[in-house]
């Protein structure tokens, strides 16, 4: 009684909301201003720790504020809008820098800051190794500044109360993503590989942002406001009058979503984004930033609910992406690339869910995915560190060095290639167990969080009977997602078996070593969340759905469907078993074959050319190069060489303007200046001279002549006076 009273009259912390943005900003400013001096004051190792602690504390405090907001929302679930300042005020158009506090935004804040804090802590340990390994320890500071900047931008994105402020955060996280993918900008293929990956991410996102911007412009024209509340209030009337406007807005927004959340056709940047340090992949390219698109659709649910056609397109894009990326993930060998395609696939699940109108299911999968995908990425980072350590160890041991040479592992060793791993279960026990939990959560094994969230999406897809253009698209979505779920379990089982089971395939894997606690503790916390997160939204209780219901009205509460759950669980188990048979039994059976005959992947001979298609990612990059980028580059070259250089520069500028001007001035100087101006001046001079010469003849020098003129003058004057 006391407790419930305390809760019902509990405190309200809504006015604290600007702090979720400002605390990370303060954190990055501190690191920016004193980071370099710390190295002088307290020494290298201590400075790194302090920088990491400052950044992590900033993220942690932001999380604390989010928790306080969450507590306040329990008593005041309607939330509030905290206006910080007037941002834009032009005529009747007015945009505030205002923070929206409601269950949806606070859910995002908790996820971003919570997972973000754990990844910050993990990075303290990880980046220490990473900067040493890459040979620039002073870049440690920069990493944490970017990370805090990312948290701040993401907070702006999720806490905005209007689309324009959301767009600021949207661009901010894109910038941070670019900066962090290119963190080792001088590394990578041919020394520019990472820069190219960063550029690719940025440009691909810009295409999406373009759609997003157009959506905001149309919104401004149609509604005269970009405020969530205003837009949603007017939306039904506008939809009734001119439905085309809402279709345009929602579809253009979808383009933004496909860019940020890596959906077909703009997903190509995400796998390349793995060039960034692993914590970045975990935080930005798996757990938080890429979910911005899902958040955007959920936030704009009023608009999407009014346009079933757009919903169908969103759902289909998500479902197709889910399946498409899952197939690619089955044939990748880079441990992070597999997870990247898995992320695209899981984002597809979320987008499909919000597209079907199952916003709670989508958001719940977003949170769940943040837990287990961050866990998997950080686990992968831990594995990479361990394998790098093993390789380093082998290189510096005389006996092992010879063995390395014999096995030809000394050159071009890739610590991210799962073919170079195996048997790590024994050397990195903690990492193995947490990774296993993450993998099972991803595969959707009950009762882990992935099962609950994914099953809710599948159940919604099965239950919804929406038909657009005569196609029961929810059924299509259900089938696509079920196949994708099956493949998900398969590829993650494959990865698990490749990395952790069997015998070590390289010395590096054999001598890999478990990481210190600073790396493994965040993993354990995330593993705990992945294990228990299912409790957030248990079937029939739906606490998470009810929580979101305060913001998203008329939410559909997904009914737990035992048939769907059984099918998906059975499929996941079958997939895992299949993976076991192929990648454990068959793989081990083939171990004794000579190297030349032994396939690197047992599926390669089974699937044949299809495996090749998967391995090469359907040649999407190549297709984009051929269809878009090469013609575009040719067009730019044409524009630059022919239009700009030859036409504008060589012809228009050099010939037409410069030569024409030269000719004109030559004509002016010879014809006009010399002939007319000079001619007049010379004529004046000559005439004066001649006149003077003629006049000079009067000056005889004879006094009497002068006297005569005086006399004559006198006479004339007198005559004049007399005759007047």
């Amino acid at each position, binding site marked *: 009684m006391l407790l419930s009273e305390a809760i019902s009259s509990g405190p309200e912390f809504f006015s604290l909301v600007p702090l979720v943005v400002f605390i990370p900003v303060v954190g990055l400013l501190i690191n920016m201003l004193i980071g370099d001096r710390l190295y002088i004051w307290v020494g290298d190792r201590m400075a790194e720790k302090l920088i990491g602690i400052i950044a992590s504390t900033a993220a942690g405090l932001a999380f604390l504020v989010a928790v306080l907001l969450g507590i306040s929302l329990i008593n005041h679930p309607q939330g509030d809008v905290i206006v910080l300042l007037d941002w834009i005020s032009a005529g009747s158009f007015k945009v505030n820098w205002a923070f929206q506090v409601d269950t949806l935004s606070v859910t995002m804040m908790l996820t971003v800051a919570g997972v973000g804090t754990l990844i910050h802590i993990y990075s303290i340990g990880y980046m220490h190794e990473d900067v040493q390994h890459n040979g620039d320890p002073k870049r440690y500071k920069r990493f944490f500044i970017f990370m805090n900047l990312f948290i701040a931008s993401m907070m702006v994105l999720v806490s905005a109360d209007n689309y324009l402020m959301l767009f600021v955060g949207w661009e901010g996280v894109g910038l941070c993503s670019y900066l962090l993918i290119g963190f080792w900008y001088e590394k990578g293929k041919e020394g520019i590989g990472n820069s190219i990956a960063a550029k690719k991410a940025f440009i691909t996102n810009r295409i999406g942002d373009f759609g997003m911007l157009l959506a905001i412009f149309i919104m401004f024209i149609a509604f005269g406001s970009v405020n969530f509340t205003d837009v949603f209030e007017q939306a039904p009337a506008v939809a009734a009058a001119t439905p085309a406007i809402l279709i345009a807005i929602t579809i253009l927004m979808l383009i933004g979503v496909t860019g940020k959340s890596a959906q077909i056709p703009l997903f190509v940047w995400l796998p390349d984004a793995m060039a960034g340090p692993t914590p970045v992949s975990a935080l930005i390219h798996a757990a938080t930033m890429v979910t911005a698109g899902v958040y955007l659709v959920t936030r704009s649910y009023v608009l999407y609910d009014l346009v079933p056609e757009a919903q169908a397109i969103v759902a289909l894009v998500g479902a197709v992406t889910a399946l498409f990326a899952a197939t690619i993930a089955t044939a990748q060998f880079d441990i992070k690339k597999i997870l990247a395609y898995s992320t695209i696939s899981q984002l597809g699940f979320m987008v499909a869910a919000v597209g079907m109108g199952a916003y709670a299911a989508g958001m719940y999968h977003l949170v769940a995915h943040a837990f287990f995908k961050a866990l998997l990425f950080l686990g992968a980072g831990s594995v990479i560190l361990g394998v790098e350590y093993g390789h380093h160890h082998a290189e510096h041991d005389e006996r092992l060095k010879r063995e390395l040479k014999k096995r030809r592992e000394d050159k071009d060793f890739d610590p991210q290639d799962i073919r170079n791993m195996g048997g790590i279960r024994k050397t990195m026990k903690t990492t193995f167990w947490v990774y296993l939990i993450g993998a099972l959560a991803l595969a959707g094994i009950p009762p882990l969080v992935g099962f609950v969230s994914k099953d809710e999406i599948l159940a919604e897809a099965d239950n919804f009977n929406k038909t657009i253009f005569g196609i029961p698209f929810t059924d299509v979505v259900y089938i696509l997602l079920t196949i994708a779920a099956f493949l998900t379990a398969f590829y993650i089982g494959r990865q698990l078996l490749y990395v952790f089971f069997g015998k070590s395939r390289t010395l590096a894997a054999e001598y890999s070593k478990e990481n210190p606690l600073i790396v493994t503790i965040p993993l354990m916390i995330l593993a705990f969340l992945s294990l228990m997160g299912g409790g957030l939204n248990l079937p029939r209780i739906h606490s998470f759905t009810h929580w979101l219901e305060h913001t998203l009205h008329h939410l559909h509460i997904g009914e737990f469907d035992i048939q769907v759950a059984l099918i998906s669980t059975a499929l996941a188990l079958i997939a895992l078993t299949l993976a076991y048979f192929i990648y454990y039994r068959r793989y081990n059976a083939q171990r004794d074959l000579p190297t030349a005959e032994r396939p690197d992947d047992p599926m390669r001979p089974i699937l044949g050319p299809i495996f090749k298609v998967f391995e090469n990612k359907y040649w999407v990059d190549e297709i984009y190069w051929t269809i878009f980028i090469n013609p575009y580059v040719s067009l730019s070259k044409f524009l630059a060489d022919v239009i700009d250089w030859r036409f504008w520069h060589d012809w228009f500028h050099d010939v037409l303007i410069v030569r024409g001007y030269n000719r004109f001035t030559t004509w002016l100087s010879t014809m006009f200046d010399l002939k007319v101006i000079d001619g007049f001046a010379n004529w004046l001079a000559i005439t004066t001279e001649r006149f003077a010469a003629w006049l000079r003849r009067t000056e005889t020098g004879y006094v*009497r002549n002068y006297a005569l003129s005086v006399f004559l003058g006198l006479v004339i004057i007198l005559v004049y006076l007399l005759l007047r």
Partner: protein
Amino acid sequence: MVPIEYYLGLSAVLFTLGALGVLIRRNAIIIFMSIELMLNSANLLFVAFARLYESMSGQIFVFFVMAVAAAEVAVGLALIVAIFRTKQSIDVDEINMLKG
């Protein structure tokens, strides 16, 4: 009493002679004398009219003219002497340095 017309006629003749002398003669001294002749023709008229109108101002004016003429002669003769010393001549046609 001699009528004024006679004075006028005489004065005109004298003045014309003086002017012609200045314009025609080349000897500087003759020119000087011609100038004096013109001055005196004027003086004659002053005096004649002073007598006619019984006013003293004309006569007084004549005295001034004489004084100025005397001073002029002093300066003029000095100039002529200086010119003669450089040119060995007082022919005004040879003094033509003002020629343009």
